[in-house]
């Protein structure tokens, strides 16, 4: 089932259309930056966006900071919200279960499928951003006397280090989508409409983003879905600040355990009457 899910994902025109949409925003931003040469004022705008004007190789990270808070999770919520409810609405869920595909197996296959979509999207975004950064934005290697890139902490990062940390950041961003995917998957087993399932997950996303800005919500913050998303920036401090990254990974795994568990609890003996 997992293989079928991956094949269907790769062959679906919708997958690539969604990836293209997610990818469009960093492309637009890159073009605008290249044309105007205006970076955001310090303290505003996504991370790394001012740095890319001098060093285009950082643009994959800026692109990540652009799509991570909103675009990517929306796409993930839509995909995962569709997982079960979409099959049910289309009528194919009963035939899959009759094939027979085990119900728990189906849930896991769907989660794997959604995460495969995330990996694909992030890699495409990063690759386009790299090419745009090299082609349109700053050329650090030409202007600097010493090779390397400034870390956020003002030390010098060698190119291999920068590449390794960039890939770590991409991996972390992918992991961050696990929570949204699990919540949407759970919602997808709960309601009949894929749209409602996606909206459910998005409600949690928006709620979490909002509560993060509220001092009164301090005790809740360590549990909020989006709390550690932007911690990938910590990978570019020197030395790497693991504090939030570790918590971010644990939090996402916690979301997977609880919401995939809830999806399983609900779905394993659910009456399939669509």
């Amino acid at each position, binding site marked *: 089932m997992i293989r079928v899910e991956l094949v269907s994902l790769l062959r679906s025109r919708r997958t690539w259309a969604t990836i293209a949409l997610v990818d469009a925003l960093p492309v637009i931003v890159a073009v605008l930056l290249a044309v105007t040469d205006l970076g955001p004022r310090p303290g505003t705008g996504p991370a790394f966006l001012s740095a890319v004007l001098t060093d285009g190789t950082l643009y994959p990270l800026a692109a990540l900071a652009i799509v991570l808070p909103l675009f990517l999770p929306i796409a993930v919520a839509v995909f995962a919200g569709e997982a079960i409810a979409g099959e049910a609405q289309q009528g194919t869920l009963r035939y899959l279960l009759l094939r027979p595909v085990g119900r728990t197996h189906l849930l896991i296959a769907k989660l794997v499928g959604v995460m495969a979509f995330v990996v694909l999207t992030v890699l495409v975004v990063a690759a386009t951003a790299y090419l745009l950064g090299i082609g349109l934005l700053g050329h650090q290697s030409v202007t*600097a006397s010493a090779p390397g890139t400034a870390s956020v902490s*003002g030390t010098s990062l060698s190119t291999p280090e920068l590449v390794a940390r960039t890939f770590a950041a991409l991996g972390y961003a992918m992991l961050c989508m696990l929570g949204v995917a699990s919540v949407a998957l759970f919602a997808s087993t709960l309601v009949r409409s894929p749209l409602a399932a996606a909206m459910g997950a998005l409600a949690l996303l928006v709620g979490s983003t909002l509560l993060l800005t509220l001092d009164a919500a301090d005790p809740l913050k360590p549990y909020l879905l989006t709390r550690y998303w932007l911690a990938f920036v910590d990978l570019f401090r020197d030395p790497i600040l693991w504090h939030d990254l570790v918590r971010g990974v644990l939090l996402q795994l916690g979301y997977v355990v609880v919401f995939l568990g809830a999806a399983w*609890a*609900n779905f394993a003996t659910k009456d399939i009457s669509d």
Partner: protein
Amino acid sequence: MTRGRGTGRRWLLVALVALALTAGPPLARAVPTRPVDIDAGTLLGRVQAAEDRPWSGLVETTGTLALPDADQFSDVAALFGGSTRMRVWWRDADHWRVDQLSTSGEQDLVRTGDRTVRWDYERLQARFGEEPSVRLPRAADLLPTELAARMLRGAGPDDVTRLPARRVADRTAPGLRLVPASPRTTIDHVDVWADADTGLPLRVEVYDASGRFLTSEAVDVDLATPSEARVSFTTPPGAGVERDDVLDIADAANQYAPLIAPQRAGGLEADGSNGAVGVYGTGPEQVVAIPLRDREADALRDQLGVTPGARQGATGTRVTVGPLGVLLTGAEGEGGLLVAGTVTPPTLHAVARDVIAGYQYVGVPQ
């Protein structure tokens, strides 16, 4: 196999797992600390002895004061009115590095001897300068170690009482409460929790009459001495380099105003300053007096004037924000003396009067 039973059991399992995951971390933090048998005086001695002890870690501070956000003072307003995260590497008082973290960058301060480098990632800029003798508060001043040292300076065993120990940065930290005896201070009390073994302050809470207004806590602590490389700074490739002659408005006034502030004001002793800016008092009662030129004074006066609770008096404009009193003497176009500190309004006025009366005028420095 009917739906009711199996489903119920599965939901119960999921609920238990969810409960364990959410309640786990708080419970782990609530693990009782090992008993600490130490009296307040001994603990105070240990904390004072641990001043400038080497350590490194991660610090979070929260301030709740809504200071007037005037141009030259906006960093100070942000510091006391919001949350700050800092990474710290501390070898000794003259060799340390404090990185102020934000989600999109860092503003770092690296102190090597009497030289200070300020690194701003988002501006991709390193600014080198001398460490001034007088300056405005900055993030590094809010480290629990620095805050505790400042507040406990001059305190004796009779000024402090013991608080129950708590778990801070996964260490057992016995607590100490300082209630200032002086009637001049607006600070009600200061609570300090310090590492049981080393006396390193790990958490500080500062209260005024209406409650807590400043908290500083080390959430991660490493007691090993950080390496020398960690507290040095080499400009990275592509970054701009600048030299700062003055750090901030207090430093500028101190260096360039043709004045020398008196050694005593409002009944408080000067705290080792010999420039135009006077810093008086120690511990919880501290007040600074900065002479301002017309332009700076007018801008600040306008800002203070529209701050809720501002009082216009014969001496000048006075604003009270929590425990902090701010007094700007003079009127439009006259310049003025800015007096600010954690002291009562009468002390504020007394300091202003004494400083203005006690200024020695000197020639403009070369």
